[in-house]
């Protein structure tokens, strides 16, 4: 069922769901929403499955004309949402009528926003997911970002009777400074104590060479003991590589699945969403925690996600 006609695509807008799992061994990265939490909330606000496909909006949002009556929600980085010129709130179910124009502005805080549609976006499922993998040119809309003229399809579903909203105190706030928690290793032994100390106590700037594949950071050089290369092995989102020049690279969701730069630390799962909201010129600090602490946070995060649906408030 046709849902939207894309009038303006926005800076870099792709169809994403929670990711493509199980294919790393074939060289296929996980992809999926960079801020999973925000995407899940967007889906729950239109009573979708958490894994239904949404639009991930980067820095500048799209303009869409509705080709059918539908309901949407916009979450993630702070962005202005207008329906036929009228300002609408984020983090809430919004009703859109056929013919109306949905315009999203610039992401003012954070980097990425999410737009869900009731029933989810309908694109072919490729290797178990609707997430877009641009390097492989598959997933989402023809394996590429949105462009003007695209038609976004949905599913024929009943509309949600009760509109929902996210409680104010649960809405994540984003600034330009990020502190993320890491577990050291697997190759932390290749760095000097001074190098590790530098890494854990410095502020790193996200450079312009940053995208869904990874963030290149600028800041104090991380010192190696000896060699700065190793035999290529597997990468996962959150891994922090340090190339020979000593400036860390944080691996993100569309990255190559293997690499030969040693990894000093890995950002914990529960902080990946936050990381996904860091844009160029933001700063990142890395805070070390133990594996046990990381697992505690993991379980808390899981609990938070699974109880989200009940926390949403009905809006009259």
């Amino acid at each position, binding site marked *: 069922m046709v849902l939207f006609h894309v009038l303006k695509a926005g800076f870099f807008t792709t169809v994403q769901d929670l990711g493509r*799992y*199980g*294919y*790393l*061994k*074939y*060289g*296929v990265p996980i992809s999926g929403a960079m801020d999973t939490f925000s995407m899940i909330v967007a889906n729950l606000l239109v009573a979708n499955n958490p894994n239904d496909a949404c639009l991930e909006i980067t820095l500048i949002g799209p303009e869409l004309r509705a080709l059918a009556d539908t309901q949407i929600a916009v979450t993630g980085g702070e962005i202005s949402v207008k329906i036929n010129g009228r300002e609408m709130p984020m983090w809430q179910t919004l009703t859109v009528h056929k013919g109306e124009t949905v315009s999203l502005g610039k992401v003012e805080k954070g980097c990425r926003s999410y737009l869900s549609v009731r029933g989810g976006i309908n694109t072919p499922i*490729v*290797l178990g997911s609707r997430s877009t*993998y641009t*390097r*492989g*040119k*598959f*997933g989402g809309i023809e394996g590429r970002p949105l462009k003007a003229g695209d038609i976004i399809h949905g599913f024929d579903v009943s509309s949600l009777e009760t509109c929902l909203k996210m409680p104010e105190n649960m809405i994540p706030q984003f600034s330009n400074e990020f502190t993320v928690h*890491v*577990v050291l*290793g*697997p190759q932390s032994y290749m760095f000097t104590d001074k190098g590790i100390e530098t890494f854990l106590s410095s502020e790193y700037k996200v450079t312009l060479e940053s995208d869904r594949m990874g963030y290149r950071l600028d800041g104090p050089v991380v010192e190696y003991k000896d060699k700065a290369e*190793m*035999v*290529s*092995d*597997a990468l*996962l989102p*959150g*891994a922090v590589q340090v190339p020979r020049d000593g400036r860390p690279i944080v691996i993100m969701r569309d990255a*190559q*699945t*293997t690499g030969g730069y040693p*990894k000093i630390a*890995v*950002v*914990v*799962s529960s902080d990946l969403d936050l990381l996904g909201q860091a844009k160029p010129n933001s700063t990142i600090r890395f805070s070390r925690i133990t*594996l046990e602490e*990381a*697992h505690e*946070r*993991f*379980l808390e995060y*899981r609990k938070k996600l699974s109880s989200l649906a009940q926390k949403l408030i009905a809006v009259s």
Partner: protein
Amino acid sequence: MKLESKDIEEAALDQIYPSARYLPFGDAALVVEFGNVIDLAINRKVVALNETVLRANIQGIEETVPTYRSLLIRYDPAKITYNHLVAKIREIEKSLMDRPLEEKGRKFIIPVVYGGVYGPDLKDVAEYHGLTEDQVIEVHYGRFYRVYMIGFVAGFPYLGEVSEEIATPRLETPRLKVPAGSVGIADKQTGIYPCEAPGGWRIIGRTPLKLFDPNWQPPALLRPGDIVKFTPISEEEFKEFFEANAH
């Protein structure tokens, strides 16, 4: 086609760890390392461990990624603890230790059009080694290669080992775009780009064969342990095949 013993490099004993190292990879993955070099014996251990772990169907393991010298195991911390996972994998590692590692790799012949526009680095590789281009080509397709891992981009096979006669370091400055199907050399590895990607490998030819298709199950043609032999084809043949396979 049996691998000749001369094609198998002697295992560098001091770079194979006597028993595997177990390292946390963040909070939801474990890396099991067998050594720190590219080595046939090490890679065979990775492949064997991977296959055995998958068959064991351990609750909590989400997926595995076999690489040159280590196996990454992604797990769900809500379903299995790190220590319990390590204990289970150690058991499996131990059970494999004294067993001879056979491989059930499949065998592939991959057609390649060498040189010209398809192999922009062939001339440099030849010059680097004081050989003619034809000699480089002959050496390249003159031996079997084993797939060590699939990584970098979807379906990209890392093949080893390239003869010292033509082993050449990567480009100083990688290309922004390497055409799909390109066959390259990087030191002692040879590989094939299944899709257009940036790359620093020395490109000596191109194959019309498709190595990856998201509609296949599994989506990649090759996997670790498979054996590959290249065979030269003409430009006409390449074009025919290429049309048929539509990259």
